[in-house]
């Protein structure tokens, strides 16, 4: 290791670093978790996708992706793994319930929403008939989440924000600006009343409100992505 790299990795026991990308909901949810628990950290913005830092590649050689949390020099990758780690090391303002059964339910919904996240963005990536199918798919997914996941609760975590809320938070961070670019809105008061209320509660939470990326910036970023997808589709 070169001397400069040694200096960079020399850390105190408690030092927390987060490698992220401003527009990524995956690193955003880690920021939310750290902020909710009042954990001090150093944020390192990665220049994605073509200019990943050597440190990132060193800390996450398997997937080479953000987010990566580094605590006391030790790296952790995969956002859900990071969220559980944060919850265990800083247990105040818990993201997971204490009861084992309730924990299994919270993990189920965090996993379900996570797995449906990329498919839920297909309506933004696709065109024509494929887009139509993706839109129908989203209705099904959101219906399942509203009926079985959220139910009558304020948050997935109950009265407080929990792990599944942080994962579903991509709805305000990414889905909403995607909807604006495409010109199609899913979560409305009449179509998904409970999810609509959830969006309001979640976005108004003081920690969340102060830690969302600039909406216009995300929309501009997504407009470029949409054109990229349009051109790829035309050229395929």
């Amino acid at each position: 290791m070169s001397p400069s790299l040694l200096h960079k990795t020399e850390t105190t026991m408690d030092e927390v670093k987060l490698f992220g990308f401003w527009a990524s909901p995956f690193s955003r949810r880690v920021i939310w978790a750290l902020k909710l628990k009042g954990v001090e950290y150093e944020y390192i913005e990665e220049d994605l996708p073509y200019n990943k830092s050597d440190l990132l590649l060193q800390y996450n050689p398997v997937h080479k992706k953000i987010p990566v949390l580094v605590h006391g020099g030790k790296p952790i990758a995969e956002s859900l793994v990071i969220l559980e780690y944060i919850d265990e090391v800083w247990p105040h303002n818990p993201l997971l319930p204490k009861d084992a059964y309730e924990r299994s339910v919270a993990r189920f919904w965090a996993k379900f929403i996570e797995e449906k996240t990329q498919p839920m963005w297909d309506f933004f990536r696709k065109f024509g008939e494929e887009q139509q199918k993706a839109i129908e798919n989203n209705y099904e997914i959101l219906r399942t989440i509203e009926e079985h996941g959220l139910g009558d609760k304020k948050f997935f975590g109950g009265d407080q924000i929990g792990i599944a809320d942080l994962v579903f938070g991509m709805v305000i961070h990414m889905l909403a600006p995607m909807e604006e670019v495409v010109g199609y809105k899913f979560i409305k008061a009449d179509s998904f009343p409970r999810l609509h209320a959830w969006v309001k509660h979640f976005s108004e939470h003081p920690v969340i409100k102060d830690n969302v990326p600039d909406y216009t910036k995300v929309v501009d970023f997504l407009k470029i992505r949409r054109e990229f997808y349009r051109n790829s589709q035309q050229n395929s």
Partner: protein
Amino acid sequence: MAGELVLLDFWPSPFGMRSRIALAEKGIPYEYREEDLRNKSDLLLQMNPVHKKIPVLIHNGKPVCESVIQVQYIDEVWHDKAPLIPSDPYQRAVARFWVDFIDKKMYELGSKIWKTKGEEQANAKKEFIECLKLLEGELGDKTYFGGESLGYVDVALVPFYSWFYAYEKCGDFSIEAECPKMIAWVKRCMQKESVAKSLPDQEKVYEFILQLKKVFGIE
């Protein structure tokens, strides 16, 4: 704490095997119920309305779905017997990372090996071996991924061994030749009763795959 425990499962499912192993490791009695996936029971559909899939662990009438979530649940509820998940938060994160890796890669790549041919199959085989090699690296010189005793990663990975013979026959390759350390680890695991009794015979799995190929019209 004991209560009534039912596992809705399907004998060749590597996911179901994970819960079987976890329960066996801890010596927890439960009722095993075989599901006919072409004719899913009302109980399965009621207990897992979202995915309608096995395995489902029903504890005192309440369902726990998703095998990795079940193993964590089992480990938390019966925490005093044969702990599977490390107690140190960082080691837990490392274990969860590798279980996530296994979940992202093994089943899909394995499926491609028996379902496809030609270039697609060749690529799947290559990636499959690369994944096993990465896992070998993580295992290192340890007896198990969990160290001296079976752990979370071991339980998540070893079920796929029951499908190795099927992959090898369909893909015309030898996993042991490419990844001897992995097979050595498998053999150590298979010496444990909890693992040996939870995994079906590899030949049976291969026959099952051949049946599936017929049904799906795959040569």
